[in-house]
């Protein structure tokens, strides 16, 4: 199937690519160049619809309840709501350090943000406003968060993973009196990563049964929420995003920057520092597909809600030292949208037949 690059890509590294919840041709992209980009990704007519400027680099963006609402967070420490029609931006909460993750739960209408200040903010969104905001103190910085229909998975430094029940968080937030007050909510489960290295990304299965996490050491772990021994025995991890250079006798191991589950078939894609995207069947433990190298490094990926498209954010240099930021050259940062054939993303296991 075909793939194409979007016109007018960001000028600096891409931090997130997210498709709209209700249409498969609206894409939000956040970038280190301090902008949020809003694209029309209709094949052959792809264009940049709008660009929303911020004061500092934007580390994550997500759609809200509909295709006209977005939330973003970044180095300006703020969580902002962006009205994609009017372009109006409103700050809905302020962290005490850069905000690196935002995630919106359409089931419960809450927005979760994570920051380097080792807190989560839980926002209850009603209309265009956050009516209640609460703060949850975490033991470490959260590096990646992901929402399933009923759970919030927070992957932190020191290989810690907390799983929260969203309803519990929402109820506690309702009860909190002062805005942004710290609430004590025990995680539903506390886990240690099954990988030895720092967690890089986490993504929940769309069927609410578990999650996949990736590490900086070319590895992905798949595990299930169900705490029973039986379910826990099913968890596994495997190596990926490595390249063996035979004549140097060296195994180059890349970080796995991005994970995304296919919304229909329950398979998942991974994007790594090697510039490769692979699609995996988590239940059959097979790789379904590996695409040709997209460029220097894949920093973000996202499936469209109907599962027909995969957006791939390509950026250089996340692996190297960057005292002065990433040296970016023309053409290195790009967004590739791939139109998917069913066999590229459909697994063989029984899970994929469900829908």
């Amino acid at each position, binding site marked *: 199937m075909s793939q194409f690059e979007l016109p007018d890509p960001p000028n600096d590294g891409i*931090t997130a690519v997210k498709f709209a919840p209700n249409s498969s041709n609206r894409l939000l992209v956040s970038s*280190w160049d301090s902008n949020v980009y809003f694209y029309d990704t209709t094949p052959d007519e792809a264009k940049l619809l709008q660009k929303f400027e911020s*004061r*500092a*680099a934007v*580390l994550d963006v997500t759609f809200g309840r509909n295709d006209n609402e977005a939330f973003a967070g970044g*180095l*300006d420490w703020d969580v902002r709501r962006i009205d994609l029609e009017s372009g109006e931006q409103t700050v809905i909460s*302020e962290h*005490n350090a850069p905000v*690196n993750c935002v995630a919106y739960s359409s089931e419960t209408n809450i927005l979760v943000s994570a920051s*380097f200040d080792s807190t989560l903010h839980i926002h209850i969104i009603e209309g265009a406003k956050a009516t209640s905001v609460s703060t949850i103190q975490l033991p470490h*910085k959260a*590096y990646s968060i992901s929402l399933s229909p009923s759970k919030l998975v927070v992957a932190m*430094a*020191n*290989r810690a993973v907390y799983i929260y029940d969203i309803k519990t968080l929402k109820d506690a937030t309702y009860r909190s009196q002062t805005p*942004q007050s710290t609430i004590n909510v025990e995680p539903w489960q506390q886990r240690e990563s*099954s990988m*030895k*290295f*720092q967690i*890089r990304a986490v993504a929940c299965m769309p069927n609410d049964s578990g999650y996949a996490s990736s590490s*900086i*050491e070319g590895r992905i*772990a798949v595990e299930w929420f169900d705490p029973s021994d039986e379910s826990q025995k099913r*968890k*596994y*991890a*495997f*190596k*990926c995003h490595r390249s*063996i250079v*035979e004549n*140097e*006798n*060296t*195994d*180059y*191991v*890349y*970080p796995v920057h991005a994970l995304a589950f296919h919304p229909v078939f329950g398979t998942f894609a991974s994007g790594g*520092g090697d510039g*490769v995207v692979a699609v995996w069947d988590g239940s059959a*433990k*097979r*790789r*379904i*597909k*590996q695409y*040709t*190298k997209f460029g220097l490094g894949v920093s973000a990926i996202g499936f469209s809600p109907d599962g027909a498209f995969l957006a791939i954010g390509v950026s250089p240099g*996340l*692996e190297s030292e*960057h*005292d*002065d*930021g*990433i040296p970016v050259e023309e053409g290195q940062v790009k967004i590739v949208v791939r139109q998917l054939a069913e066999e*590229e993303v459909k697994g063989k296991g029984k899970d994929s037949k469900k829908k």
Partner: protein
Amino acid sequence: MGKKRRHPDIEEVLARPWCYYCERDFDDLKILISHQKAKHFKCERCGRRLNTAGGLAVHLNQVHKETLNAVDNSLPNRQGLEVEIFGMEGIPDDVRQQHDQRVTQQYYEALAERQAATGNPTPGVSGIANASKKTKLDDPQDLKARLAAFKAKKAAGATGNGSGNATPNSATQQLQSPAMAPLPMAGSPVQAFPPGGQASPLPPPGAMNPYAAPYPPPTGYGPPGYPVPGAAFPNYPGQLPYQPPYQGSQPVEMEAFNTAPPGFPTNGQAPPGAPPGAAPGAPGLPSRPAFSAPPVNPAQFQQMHHSQGAAPPGADGSPVNATSIDDLIASASKNASATVDTTVAAPEKKGKKDKDKDKTVKLLYDDVESPEAKMARSSRYAFTPDRTKSAAVA
């Protein structure tokens, strides 16, 4: 044989063609080839079925201007394009050996299971009986040796019989392997599959005899010594001519005990806790090349090497610090499970065992901080919001 047997014998199982990329086996080479063309060498763009991965790479390159990175639908460690596979041709020897090993093991596991379920004797028994018939022609000295060995085995309540190879982790199995290895030397060239053949789950007492056959009447190392696995070695000085076949079969033996570090069997000799590498201390013994492998398997090395501050390297899994054989076994299996590479990656560990030794693993990113956290501090992105107005919030 007029009647069709329901259960093929090991030769038939091993002779089945199988696919290098996904380890599936087939009735017929033709089916294998069409499987490979359909599953692994098919062009996703135009549906053309090529004969080899190389052919597909050239096709993609010339027709679609793309490069092929990896073979589709393949096991993670078999994705490479370096090997040119067509049907059963081109499979590297080590991979083939592993496959045979695995198939053999599965075969005997199934056999033992069936036997347990039906109570029927193993078809293999007759083969073993034949082998012992042959050795009956041996001189009385051999007979004595065999008797001595058998008695010793019995006396020590040797647990070897029937342990089968279904439990590669059990200590008995580990210890047994050195004793089994000499079988090929017993002058039975019939042993086309030494590891599998010997690992037959139920060697009847007669079957034990060939093991003893090569040893001269024990002198200093009498019956009591025999059951101690390590004691099998003292016989070697007198048995130098047998060394080469022993070495030859050793690596294959080792493969079966993948979960244990190489050199594990030496722990029967080495004082627990001492690095097994120190074992070859027995004076006057020839060197034992097969056992000179590092005491820690590569997977463990990697684990130790990679383990982050949380777990001090070696403290939690290294046999060096283990205090007993039980610990060793526990740590070995723990480490095996710690890598959590289940079915997908299991063959990989075997295959790369040797290569990994001298391979450097280079992490492209190795920091306890996330790349974003690091970059956020760099001068280029530095930004501190003016929070005077909202200081109350903080």
